[in-house]
């Protein structure tokens, strides 16, 4: 059994591989029907890279993102995360990596309505034992500051607009300073103005060195990534770089 170590524990160069998928498969079984959501996926994401995943509905891009984020397990293949075999991780180790190294931004924001903005952002930090209350407070404030939502810290999600909710979701994703930010249609529920604002946030994060992997339908959003892969019928059918300059480490 693999013993997990933090994927950031070794200093790795900006162009080192953070994610490496080899022949990844995902099959769903519904009664007697087998659905191959992903088939022989091979993908490498380098640290500091901003990758977008595009494709038609039902092509498997969200499934791919779930596998990358350890929200689901593959049916076959190999997944290395910062050089460690992620397939062999147990549930608790996966949870720990999700907590420390991965930040999620969902299309539907997925904020918990019973919690205030600050509490939502603090939530992943409360799962860490190495942070004091003061540390958590500072990290929450920093994250909310970054997304310009600090003034709304005590509000509840239902009191915010969709764009504001998504900014809070971004703050939650970055509050623990993860190595990898996974965004699933982050602008899917937003109007163009709010979508623009959220994409700018992601751009900023990328410029600050974050590795971002984003699923999107929107060609404009996809174009803001360094690299775009296109998924069709569970396979990567295209992998192209955009003209954006590589991210610079801060």
């Amino acid at each position, binding site marked *: 059994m693999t013993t997990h170590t933090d994927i950031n524990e070794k200093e790795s160069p900006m162009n080192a591989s953070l994610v490496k998928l080899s022949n990844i498969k995902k099959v769903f079984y519904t009664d007697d029907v087998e659905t191959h959501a992903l088939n022989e996926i091979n993908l490498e994401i380098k640290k500091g890279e901003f990758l977008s995943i595009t494709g038609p509905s039902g092509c498997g891009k969200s499934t791919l993102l*779930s596998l990358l984020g350890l929200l689901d*397990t593959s049916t076959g293949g190999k997944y290395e995360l910062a050089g460690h075999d992620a397939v062999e991780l147990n549930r608790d180790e996966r949870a720990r990596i999700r907590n420390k190294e991965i930040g999620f931004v969902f299309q539907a924001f997925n904020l918990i309505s019973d919690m205030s903005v600050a509490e939502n952002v603090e939530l992943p930090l409360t799962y860490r034992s190495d942070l004091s209350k003061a540390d958590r407070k500072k990290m929450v404030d920093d994250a909310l500051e970054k997304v310009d939502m600090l003034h709304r810290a005590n509000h509840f999600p*239902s009191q915010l607009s969709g764009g504001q909710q998504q900014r809070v979701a971004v703050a939650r994703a970055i509050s623990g300073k993860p190595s990898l930010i996974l965004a699933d249609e982050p602008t899917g529920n937003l109007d163009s103005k709010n979508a623009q604002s959220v994409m700018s946030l992601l751009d900023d994060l990328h410029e600050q060195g974050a590795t971002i992997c984003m699923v999107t339908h929107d060609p404009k959003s996809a174009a803001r990534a360094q690299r775009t892969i296109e998924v069709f019928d569970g396979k990567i059918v295209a992998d192209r770089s955009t003209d954006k300059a590589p991210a610079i480490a801060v």
Partner: protein
Amino acid sequence: MSLSIDIKYAARLLSKKPGFTALTVSIVAVGLGLTLYTFSLLNGLLFKPLSFADNKPIYAIESPYDHTHLARREIMAIDIYNLKKDTSLIADIGVYQEGTTFVGGTNDGLRKYNSSYVSANMFGFTGVQALHGRGLLPEDHLEGAEQVIVLGYDMWQSYFNGDPDIVGTIVPIDGSEPTRVVGVMPQGFAFPSIAEIWQPLPNSVVNPTTRERSFVFAFAKLADGVSLSQARLALDAKSKEIEADVGDDITWLIGPSGKYLTIEPMKKANITQYYGMFIALLVVVFLILVLACINVGNLLLARVNERIKEVAIRVALGVPKQRLILQMLWESIFICLLGGFLAVLLAGWGLEITNQVFDNTYEVDNLKPFWWHVSLDSQALLVLALTIVGMILVTGLMPAWRALTGDFNAVLRDGTRGALGKKAAKTTKVLVISEILLSCVVLIMATVLLVSSYNAGNADYGIETENRLTAQLQLAPSNYPIRPDTEHEDRLARSKFYYDLKAELESRDNIIDVAYMSQLPGTGGGTSYFVIEGQEKEVIEENPFSNNEGAATDSWDALGMQIIQGRDFDYRDANQDARSIIVNESISKDFFPNGDAIGKRVRRANRDDAEWYTIVGVVSDTYHGSTMEFSSAAYNTYHSMDNAGMFRTMTAIHYTGSEAQARQSLFDAVNTVDPDVGIFHVQSYDALIAKPILLIAAVSKIFLICGVVAAFLAASGIYAVAANSVQQRTQEIGIRRALGSPDKGIIRLFMGQATWQLLVGLSIGLAMSIWLISIMSSTMIFSQLSYIIGLAGMPLLIAAMVLIATFIPTKKVVKMEPSNALHHN
């Protein structure tokens, strides 16, 4: 048109999930069935006023109930007579005494009947006409008038074979008194309560002119427009007036409330000792109904949560608010109507069984009040209809409210956790807490009563009951009169009969021993305060209290009791001036710890001039009265019955062989010694002991059913509510896991919340239970074991149910991959 679409749609939804439909209908049927049954039972026994053709409620006027002797108390006849004259609040009033009368002349034909000695106006008061002949007339009260009797229908049928020419015939009463039958009352009439025959009270009791020690119960109707509370105030004032006038003469009749005259509905006055238990039953059943409502409402709520997208689409399409509510109500209407129909069948069946239980309970002594026949009447059906409407509203409005208050925009967009909303989350918490507290109360009440009645049924009364036959013996007064000039000799003559019978019985091969006591251990149980010489207390109530019985010499072996110290009663105690007493071991140990009880003196505490009795012996402990009754006692004292000359006594016969042979021996021996002596209530000792708790045992069976129903409703309800609560939070669990919460963290979070809800629910539930138990414990004794199981065991059981009901669905959701949980709908 739209209405029919909605009805069809609701019917289709129900038929699509037959398991769900069957579950909800059965919950409704059980909840409504119990409610209907309990209402009918209590309405028949307690709430529906006793009345006759004029529909005017009949009230009982008497002294406060004597809880220490478990007995209703009469009032002085002169006070009722004056009350009748002095107050205009009472429209009509009559008086009566209750007793037993022997009809027939010899042992073969002698039968004992419950008789009511009444004022002649009783027949006009009820407005019930005699079936044959007449009722009593005012002249029947007069001194020197011919002795007359009115027969009840059942005794006329059983004793006189329904002889149509019975009116006018002379029958011997109480052995030899010639009495003319003047009438036969119609079937079912037994007013005031259990009368099988009616005889006139003496004129000195009906129309007293002086304050003599004659006591009566009274029945009354209030004047038009007068309320019960007005009548109570008037009687309170009258009580004070009488007390001021006569003082000590009535002090012993004044209850703890300080009142002398009380007025209560007739039905309530008959079951004062069980009133608390019946009210507790009503509360428990009401809580079960609420529990059933919550369960069904929750199940329907869960259905709406499943269908929330469909509801959102309807809202988006512009469904009017009223129509949406109606759509939500249709399912409830179907479920509650079907459940209501089944409830009628269930309740009818339960009432039928109850009537059988009543008949069996009072088969030996016919002490069942005549209105104790329960059935489903129009009032009960009206209550059912109202309850169904209430249930439809509660169970239907819960999902309707959910349907109206959701964030449907969010639901239509994704159906995220945000769509559930704080209100729904709070509702779920309230539901879980309600389930916990209701289950707690119902299960505790059911357990405490069940365990206590079981313990009472299996209690150690300190006696042997195997191969023991019991019976009541009653001398014919005409054969054993007590005359002023030869009183002591007359009393000894009575006692001689008992000893002759004992010798006759013990000479037979199948009879080992014979005992006589005024009340046998396990029965009786009236208590009185007693004073120990040298240990007197200043306040009467600070003295110890004991049960006091008369006992014959050599009665201990037959009961399995032993003389521990001193001696048994003997010839010395038959002396007119003898004042000897035997006490039980507990008295000896508690008040004479040095073992020096013999020779010490005790007396009754309530009279300063009461005579001192010298302790001559100590016998083993027994328990008099049911161990469930407040009046029962562990301290017992025994007087010699020799010079008391008891008119009636209980006997216990220790036999070998069969019970039937022992019965035959008893009848043969009585025939040999004195054929005019009546033998009644012949039964095994076990049956005798069971008798004081038969009604409690019967009611505790209802509590058992309530307990089983409550356990089922609680378990299923708590699981459903908790599972639904977790289910609704599946996406939240997905979010938490996506953010890195370990499985244990999620489970800990949900279990922690469940524990908090448990603490709130159990705290309120325990407080309510203790309050209800305190109401019942004024007349009943609950065993320690029942408190332990009820107040500790049941909360633990509920805690286990809640924690399991939270753990299993939480574990199930936690096992899901976070990606599935996040997209859970």
